């Protein structure tokens, strides 16, 4: 069920409840996306709420691989608003996921471009300011992942942070399953090495 709440200030809240969307077959998923995109183009807000539910984890993960942890939640909202405004420009309605992933990556680049001139918060400062104590260790590991080569960051974060499976990552982002699989395994191998080094440094 999806609820649309009208609030003051002309804002509408779309609240989704089906947050644990399971990955189904890519073809069916694409057809469902195409139908939802068509509905959104026709002015259906509820349809956009469903797309938000299905893809918010992916957007969050992609942003987490690129921008400070404390900024991600706001940027997720930004990305979906941009997508909503530009949805008429989407040619293939069935490839909403890859298109949204591209918008997300561009938005992350914009973020870095805009904050270049201002005092940029380092990840450590940003994360310690926003993360609660139980999350501190998680943020530390996240920072380790973000130091890995770019190709490994996104699939590893989507896999470990957002809990998506490899096939789901490939299907949602539009990447080739084989390359996602390779990147997850190679990234995991590198991460093990980095974690081992960190542990060794702590002990000595």
């Amino acid at each position, binding site marked *: 069920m999806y609820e649309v709440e009208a609030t003051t200030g002309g804002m509408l809240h779309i609240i989704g409840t089906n947050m644990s969307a399971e990955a189904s077959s890519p073809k069916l998923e694409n057809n469902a996306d195409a139908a939802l995109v068509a509905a959104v183009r026709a002015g259906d807000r509820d349809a956009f709420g469903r797309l938000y539910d299905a893809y918010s984890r992916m957007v969050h993960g992609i942003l987490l691989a690129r921008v400070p942890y404390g900024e991600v939640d706001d940027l997720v909202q930004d990305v979906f608003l941009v997508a909503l405004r530009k949805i008429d420009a989407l040619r293939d309605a069935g490839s909403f996921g890859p298109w949204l992933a591209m918008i997300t990556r561009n938005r992350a680049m914009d973020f870095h471009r805009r904050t270049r001139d201002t005092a940029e918060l380092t990840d450590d400062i940003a994360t310690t300011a926003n993360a609660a104590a139980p999350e501190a260790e998680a943020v530390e590991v*996240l920072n380790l992942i973000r130091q890995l080569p770019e190709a490994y960051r996104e699939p590893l974060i989507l896999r470990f942070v957002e809990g998506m499976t490899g096939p789901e990552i490939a299907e949602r982002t539009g990447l080739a399953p084989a390359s996602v699989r390779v990147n997850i395994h190679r990234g995991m191998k590198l991460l093990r090495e980095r974690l081992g080094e960190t542990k060794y440094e702590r002990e000595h």
Partner: protein
Amino acid sequence: MSDYLWDKTGEADEDVAQLENLLGALKYQPRPLEIPADAMPATKTTATTMPRNTRTATFFSRPRLALAASLVLTLLAGLWLVTRDSEPRKDIVAKVEQGGAPGGGRQTDKVVVPNSATDQSAPNVTDRNTGKATDDKTHGATQKSSTAAAQQLKAQTERPRIVTASNAKPHRTSRQLLARRQKLQTRPEENVSAPREEIVLNDGMRLQADEPLTPQQREATEQLMFALRLTSAKLNYAQREMREIGRAGK
């Protein structure tokens, strides 16, 4: 083969499970998406705010413009081709006055300038110019052939000669004649006996081979070229506009 890291099937590795538990704390916490009230209609209003009549008019005005421009261009190009082709359609007769040959006296022959190299019946002008160095036999043969050429000329001037576009090369012929004239001018000792050439058109108009265009002719040519360039530029602009409309429509 099960691969827990890939698709969460089979037995989980210890470190993988640990990472899942640890990093799972940072997963996305769903929160309502706040959409400004004007965000949704904005996508639709961009397409509908413009009055339909105006959109239709702007859409169809450009193709009309393109069509009109292409018609004008075609018309002008056709006109230019017609005027260009009309010149070689007339018989071009070169009047070669041959004289000053040693012992040969002065002869005046009217010969048809051959329009193609395969025209064996027409006397070769180049051979006639270089004929000075030939021996008496050759010279006699040349005289005979020139008499035959004069007779042939009479026959040809009586019946209209049609020069097709494929074998009519007026520019090349003029250029050849001009080159030859310049060559003769550079040899003063032969200049006395060099044949003077002029082109006599069927309608009686005489043109020197190297005669420059009159100011009126030059002006007309320039005007025509300018009109062609202008039309071409307009057509290009219209095509570009059409492409942009097509992209915007998509």
